[in-house]
């Protein structure tokens, strides 16, 4: 999964202190994209492994991101099966629900491990993720269909 690798790289690229609040949740977006496109063939184990890798890189407690990504993937597969995957409003609703839940769980875990700085800017990433989603979704979809056409 090259797209996941790119997402990981986008996640760990260093940004300035202020901009980094607005970094979209690239990995979660990628997982949601695949959950919507190839539905139940998306791998939960993959989500878990990537989560562990991010936990190591970020120095968060082991399992925090793993739990979040697994839940995001699972939920978006389940919800994606019940809706029209290409309807824009429905997609946005799904995005806000799953990402919101993911961020909420992360916040809880951070609160328990006293790793949270309690700033409202924490939620900026949700906004930026929703804004970037149509472009990212279209880009990933473009390469996916192109590869299918070739193969």
């Amino acid at each position, binding site marked *: 999964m090259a797209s996941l690798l790119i997402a990981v790289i986008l996640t760990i*690229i260093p940004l300035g202190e202020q901009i980094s609040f607005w970094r979209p949740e690239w990995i979660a977006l990628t997982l949601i994209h695949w959950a919507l496109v190839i539905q139940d063939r998306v791998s*939960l184990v993959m989500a878990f492994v990537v989560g562990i890798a991010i936990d190591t890189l970020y*120095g*968060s407690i*082991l399992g925090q991101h793993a*739990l979040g990504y*697994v839940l995001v993937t699972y939920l978006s597969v389940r919800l994606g099966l019940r809706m029209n995957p290409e309807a824009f409003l429905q997609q946005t609703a799904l995005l806000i629900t799953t990402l919101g839940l993911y961020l909420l769980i992360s916040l809880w875990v951070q609160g328990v491990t006293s790793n949270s700085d309690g700033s409202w800017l924490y939620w900026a990433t949700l906004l930026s993720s929703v804004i970037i989603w149509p472009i990212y979704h279209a880009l990933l979809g473009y390469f996916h269909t192109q590869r299918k056409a070739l193969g």
Partner: protein
Amino acid sequence: MVLVLSALMLMAVDYRNPDALRPVRTAALMLVYPLLVSVDSPHRFYSTSGFFASQSTLAMENTALKEQIQLYAAQQRIISSVQQENTHLRAMLKAAPSASYNFTLAETLEAANDRVRGLAVLDKGSNNGVHESQVVLSGENIYGQIIEVTPFSSKVIQLVDRSHTIPVRNQRTGERALASGMGRGLAMEIKNLPSNSDVKDGDIFVSSGLGGLFPPDFPVAKVIPQGVEFKPGAAFATVKALPLVNYEATRDVLLIWRKPGVPDPEPHIEAAATPPAKDTDTKEAGTSKLAHPKQEGSH
């Protein structure tokens, strides 16, 4: 479900007993190390190759550095003779030799992480003799300490990390306190200063050496303007201090090895009988500590 459960279990174990999962962390860090290097490489090329630096800038820098080296060489000569004298005196007093230090340069790999944590990955690992809870310096200031080691890389926890605290001493008054990190980009908090303490804006806190990990008298943080607050009724003052290391801009750090009491009083008592001039030479050839980082760092 199994994965969710295992993630929860991992978190529980990691929270209760961080040591139990150390192998997992180390393995994962080794796995993602290539990624870190690849993310870091454009930055490294841009900043360290000097490809875009003009020749006159380089020439100027070169002259300045040469002057500095000469200065340091002269100082080193004085220091080594004082050191030698110190060893002799200690040998005569039959006191334990004082601890000395070895240095190596390392580079941090640029990568983002949690805002409240201050963690960085270094490009030196246990293959280079790095070990856990080793002290890392940046210039003349304390940068942090090593918390995790793999064969090629190591993870350093910076002083600004929320879970890190270092024992400090006010350089002006000698008052002891603790400096806790509050997250990257935020001021550190100086704790345990009594409410009648005479701490002022601009005071510099240096490491106190208590606890035996950090060497004493290295600068740690400087109190910010209006950073001292005495709340009525509180037992301790609230003091905010900015770390003296610029964590956003620092790439080159120094790893130091503490050599606890080098046991060589015997040879030096014999050496005391030989003429002093010759003794200086052998001393310099043998244990010159400052020549070491130059060799290591010039790769």
